[in-house]
């Protein structure tokens, strides 16, 4: 165990130096992307906001079922099958057929090549599960149908969220999928997430609909509240244009009224539809509806044919800016709920870094002093191993751009405390061996050999705990598991390559000395 080839000495040295370089690169500036890596600080250290959003898919499901009903009606009409009593309840479609046609309907729905109930080869499942009793049918989304629906609405939502966050202009936001109905948004440096939250909390479904001339509710009209909450109006359900038709929106001043308004431009289809509707609807009131609430309902004075228009309302400049932003970034497929929020102010982050570094330095000095007191010269070797261990650990974290969190710093300090264990095990073993062995080289060699399995066992147990934490933990805790886990690997390296190398060198030189350790 004490023999090292020249090549090995050389590679250990080079490896240590290269990795240590990255530790130092945290404190220097180099004009090269690869060589000027910095450790990434977690939100708890640099300050910022963490938001977990969950999509409420229920409205999407109902919406999809409604369009499925239309599809089914057309499909069966083409096949000359009469279907009665369509209804949607509990996220399922119900309908009845003539009992004679039952088998035919069943086979149309249940066939692997069904045109109306898609069969997913990869899942071995249909989009809808079918239940049949006598002449009644019930269609419910299958597990896989639901997964596909959720995934597509998540994909849409994440795009919209990204656009909205980008428009606000926070630096380096991190937007990630979590499962199939959640989005994680990390906003470094943001200590007041209020505005982002209000932007993400809106679906931003914009529609233009006429206010019904006949002020009585009937089929084809709906009763809607005004945004201000003090009145309501009955509007026609027919949508003239929606937010999808918008190509741009920005806040402007209306020179005549001196009010802040949102001006918008429509795409070609939207402009044509809008022109046609306003030409025939001069004198009518046009309701501008956002997320089911009427913002305003101006009277159409003249046909608007250019594809440009303005939305007036009780806007401040800020709220007009936000509305324009929402319209530009498009509507969310479904409402988002914020189910978890964690915000750390920048000065607390700074305090945490300082406290973390302070305790690292003090912990390090205490351990180093104790080791020197216990083992003198060999304590120095262990301490040298400890220092290179720290450099390796921070270097690897930097190289892989791992995120350092406050618990992560605690993990580094803990590594300092536990890393000496391996060297202690070896030194204690060598002491025992020296009692019965006069040749110090043999005693040192067998000290290393006999302690090896114990050291491996002891470190693997901690590594197991770190790996489980990595997969089960979240955010800051994950940072702890990373430093703890990598710390074990660098500990083994520094003990078996660096400390052993120095020990071997020293022992071979001083083999005739009386009391070595």
């Amino acid at each position: 165990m004490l023999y090292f080839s020249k090549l090995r000495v050389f590679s250990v040295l080079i490896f240590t130096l290269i990795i240590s370089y990255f530790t130092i690169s945290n404190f220097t500036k180099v004009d090269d992307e690869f060589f000027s890596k910095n450790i990434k600080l977690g939100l708890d250290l640099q300050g910022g906001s963490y938001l977990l959003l969950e999509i409420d898919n229920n409205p999407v499901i109902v919406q999809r079922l409604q369009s499925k009903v239309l599809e089914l009606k057309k499909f069966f009409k083409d096949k000359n099958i009469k279907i009665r009593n369509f209804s949607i309840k509990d996220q399922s479609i119900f309908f009845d057929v003539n009992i004679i046609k039952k088998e035919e309907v069943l086979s149309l729905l249940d066939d692997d090549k069904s045109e109306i109930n898609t069969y997913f080869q990869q899942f071995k499942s249909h989009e809808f599960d079918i239940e049949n009793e006598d002449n009644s049918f019930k269609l419910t989304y299958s597990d896989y149908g639901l997964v596909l629906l959720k995934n597509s609405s998540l994909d849409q939502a994440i795009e919209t969220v990204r656009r909205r966050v980008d428009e606000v202009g926070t630096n380096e936001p991190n937007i990630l999928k979590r499962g199939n109905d959640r989005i994680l948004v990390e906003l470094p440096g943001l200590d007041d997430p209020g505005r982002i939250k209000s932007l993400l909390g809106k679906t931003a479904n914009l529609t233009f609909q006429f206010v019904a001339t006949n002020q009585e509710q009937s089929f084809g009209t709906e009763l809607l509240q005004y945004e201000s909450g003090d009145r309501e109006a009955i509007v026609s359900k027919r949508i003239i244009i929606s937010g999808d038709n918008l190509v741009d929106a920005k806040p402007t001043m209306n020179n005549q009224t001196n009010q802040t308004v949102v001006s918008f431009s429509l795409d070609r289809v939207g402009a044509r539809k809008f022109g046609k509707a306003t030409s025939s609807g001069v004198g009518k009131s046009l309701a501008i509806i956002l997320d089911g609430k009427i913002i305003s309902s101006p009277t159409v004075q003249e046909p608007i044919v250019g594809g440009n228009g303005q939305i007036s309302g009780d806007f401040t400049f800020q709220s007009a800016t936000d509305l324009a932003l929402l319209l530009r970034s498009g509507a969310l497929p479904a409402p988002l709920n914020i189910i978890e929020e964690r915000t750390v102010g920048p000065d607390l982050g700074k305090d945490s870094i300082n406290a973390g570094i302070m305790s690292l330095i003090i912990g390090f000095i205490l351990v180093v002093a104790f080791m020197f007191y216990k083992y003198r010269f060999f304590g120095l070797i262990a301490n040298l191993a400890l220092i290179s261990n720290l450099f390796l650990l921070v270097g690897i974290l930097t190289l892989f751009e791992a995120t350092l969190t406050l618990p992560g710093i605690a993990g580094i300090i803990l590594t300092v405390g536990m890393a000496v264990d391996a060297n202690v095990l070896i030194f204690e073993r060598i002491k025992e061996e020296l009692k019965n062995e006069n040749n110090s080289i043999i005693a040192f060699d067998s000290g290393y050999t006999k302690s090896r399995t114990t050291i491996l066992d002891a470190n693997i147990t901690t590594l197991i705990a770190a790996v489980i934490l990595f997969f089960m933990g979240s955010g800051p805790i994950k940072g702890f598991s990373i430093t703890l886990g990598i710390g074990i690997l660098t500990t083994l390296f520094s003990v078996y390559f660096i400390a052993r190398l120095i020990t071997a060198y020293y022992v071979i030189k001083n083999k005739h000395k009386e009391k070595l350790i």
Partner: protein
Amino acid sequence: MKTIYFNKFYKSFNILSGILIIASLVFLVFKGLNFGVDFKGGTLIELRTDKSSANITKIRDSFNQMNLGDVSVKNFGNETDFVVKFEKQNSNDPKFIEEIKTKLSNSIGTVDFRRVENVGPKVSAELLRSGVIAIALSLAAMLLYIWIRFEWQFSLGAILALFHDVIITLGVFSVFSLEINLSIVAAVLTIVGYSMNDTVVIFDRVRENLRKYADVKIFELTNISINETLSRTIITSVTTLLALLSIFIFGGEILKGFSLAMILGVIFGTYSSIYIANPVLVSLKVSQRTIVKEEKE
């Protein structure tokens, strides 16, 4: 070095441990744990007031007037810092936190919200579940590992020692109503790793000595092994405790609970490696034949 007869006290310390475990379980069942917002849901606000005249009572009163459910206010580190926790969480309302801040400034003057955590009921339930799964999984993984590496008698001893450490550490948290949050789960997992580590070192030696001494009974043998590894046990515990104490004292308020749990865990872990793991080997009548049989297979 002088031999210390640890084995003389196996019985008395086992009784003590038994009492501690039962007491801990009683507390865990009847008093329960003080779950933080991570696991219970709700809102946590760490705030700094302008002047030290703002006291706990004043802050509690102004929060109580806001209708936020159960409110708890604690001093946090120094005179001007406080942590406020309450049941209500309404992260969907973007003005929720802002309004609290305005109302608070009206009654106690300028405040700075240094940290806000808002955890919904669904997330907190999931976090709790994944915390419990993580701890269970790590215990199972340790069991599996030590089962592969050692004979079953040893596994049983090590696992009993682990349960001992985890239960008593949680018991202490229950007795003093210390908060259980995500970082405590991390601490418990690390304790599991550390306690295992400590036990494995002694067990390795026990197994080695079983091969070395053909005619020493396990009762004696455990004591020899404990003594042979004692200086290592002490040195490692001391360096680990030094590092942890440094976190506890200088690492800031956020890491207090975490480092306290770890300190308790290291102390109990060291104790249980000697007084739980080894007596189990004695009472399971481990002998030279136990490992010979294993090696034949």
